[in-house]
């Protein structure tokens, strides 16, 4: 039986998505793969600000990016341990994983590496206009994911069949 993949990231950590994943795993008796992605898109902007606007050298922005990513990963480890503990308390099987990379790319990579049946992601509250104008990684994922994706918003849960 394939995994249900729960994806967390530094800016997308809605506790509702954890609850939803655990309830689905419990209902379907599938293993849970909880993944935290230290999203490089969040640190890409730093270089633009530090190098292009602040006129400091590359090594300064690399230093900051590395510090931020390490912090994201430490934060992710903590969140994943909490998910694992919750799953354990319910007697559910849960595997955890931390990845560093671009959000959509990493999810797609994991989907091909492992047998993933469903993906649960959460996203921050934003207007549709802002998503269209500035782009949305979750929208990109919905277009490219090889399996159904459930998106947990602050106010709702949307299911997207592929």
């Amino acid at each position, binding site marked *: 039986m394939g995994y249900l993949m729960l994806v967390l990231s*530094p*800016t997308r950590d809605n506790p509702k998505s954890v609850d939803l994943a655990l309830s689905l795993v419990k209902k379907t008796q599938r293993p849970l793969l909880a993944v935290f992605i230290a999203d490089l898109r*969040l*640190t890409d*902007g*730093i270089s*633009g*600000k*530090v*190098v*292009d*606007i*602040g*006129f*400091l*050298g*590359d*090594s*300064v*922005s690399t*230093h*900051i990016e590395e*510090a*931020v990513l390490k*912090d*994201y990963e*430490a*934060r992710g480890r903590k969140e994943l341990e909490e998910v694992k503990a919750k799953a354990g308390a319910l007697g559910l099987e849960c595997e955890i994983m931390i990845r560093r990379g671009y959000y959509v790319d990493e999810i797609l990579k994991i989907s091909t590496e492992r047998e993933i049946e469903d993906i649960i992601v959460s996203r921050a509250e934003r207007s549709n206009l802002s998503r*269209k*104008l*500035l*782009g949305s*990684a979750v929208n*990109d994922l919905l277009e490219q994911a090889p399996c159904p994706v459930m998106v947990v918003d602050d106010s709702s849960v949307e299911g997207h069949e592929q």
Partner: protein
Amino acid sequence: MFNIKTPLLILAVIVILLILLSPTPEGLTREGQSALAILAMCFILWTSAAIPLSVTSLVAIALLPLLGVMGEGEAFALFGNRAVFFILGAFILAGGMMASGLSSRIALVFLRRFDRSPKWLISGIVTSCAFMALWMPAHAVAAFMFPIVLEIARALELRPRESNYGKALFLSMAWGCVVGGVATLLGGARNALAIGILAEKYGMSISFAEWVMAVFPLTLVLALVVHLVVFRFFKPEIDNVRPARVVLERKVKELGRMSATEKKVLAVMLITVAFWVLLSGRLGLATIAIMGAATLFIIHAITWHDVEKYVNWGVILMYGGAIALAKALEITGAAKWLVTSFLEPFQLGPFALLAVISLISIILTEAMSNAAVVALVLPIAFELLDTGVGLSPIAAVFAVAVPAGLAFTLPIGTPPNAIAYSARYHRLRDSLRVGILLNIIALLTFLFIARFYWPHLGIF
């Protein structure tokens, strides 16, 4: 993924073509119209950062001779402006402080004295960031303080986006840098850029000491205000900072004894600042800056490799291009035409004009690089002065450059805000809500100082 930068680039091209192909308005020369087209392009590209700021400057400086605004020799010679060399020297000195580890040592030793309680630690961060930003660019201070603050937040086990204390730590870091960065010519290159544009137009200058005398009181008041505002809006949920003390103790221990290189950099920095304060009128700011930077190489305190790691050479292009654009607006009469066509009907007294210029600068700086604000607003402000309102060009320099450095709200406004935001310990709405309040207080304090303190210095 959709990239908003491409439509913005296309918009810049359309706008420049539209202005160039329109009939030349009465009172404006053809060259002036071309200069305005370049100004409009710079405004779009500097605001949106669709391409690196320095590349926008490069395009602008190439367009100046191409569109017949000024000769090639004249345009490119402006890259050699002394303000550009002052900025370059100051960046190399700052690079020396970072490469040797001196900047981190000073910050840690300073911070170590404030690790008694949550509020004291916040005070330590605001004070050490503001203090360091007196000596080097504010964003360089944010860059080396950030990993320290991040480690403190982690040691205190603060929950990102939920912990008030986490928000307070990162916002105090950013805002400490911002308020310190306006006080000297070293805190932000925009200050030197403004002096460069002043020298090109009026042949006047502002010495290092004069700048500090005029602006330092503002920094003192704002540093205090930042403390109060942070304590008021982000009440700490923790009551001891023992884990942070452990982090700071470990970091100080890791630094070991002060190295010979650090001592050399410190000596050069102190001597250079002493020269700036005492002799900049006779020797020139840029000459002293370059001598200080060169000394670092001569005594083997830094290498070219270090400088390349810590300084982006685009700095020369950005500031050289900005000065060339300002000069083009002046010599073609484009800035004068803008003022007489759109702004002259609003007859303002000197203080009202100072207030309006400061207000425009502080608003614009939230959305664009503060150097770009100086490059766009100052030439127009100078033309306004020439209509005989009785405001001195030196007051106009302060009215543009100082508020342009006071970006408290958005990450896009200034690198310290962006660096702080990257940790994601606070949400945009946290910095927006409190930052706007800080902007208002900062502007009112600035105007109060201009009205009641500057007359004693002969500025206003």
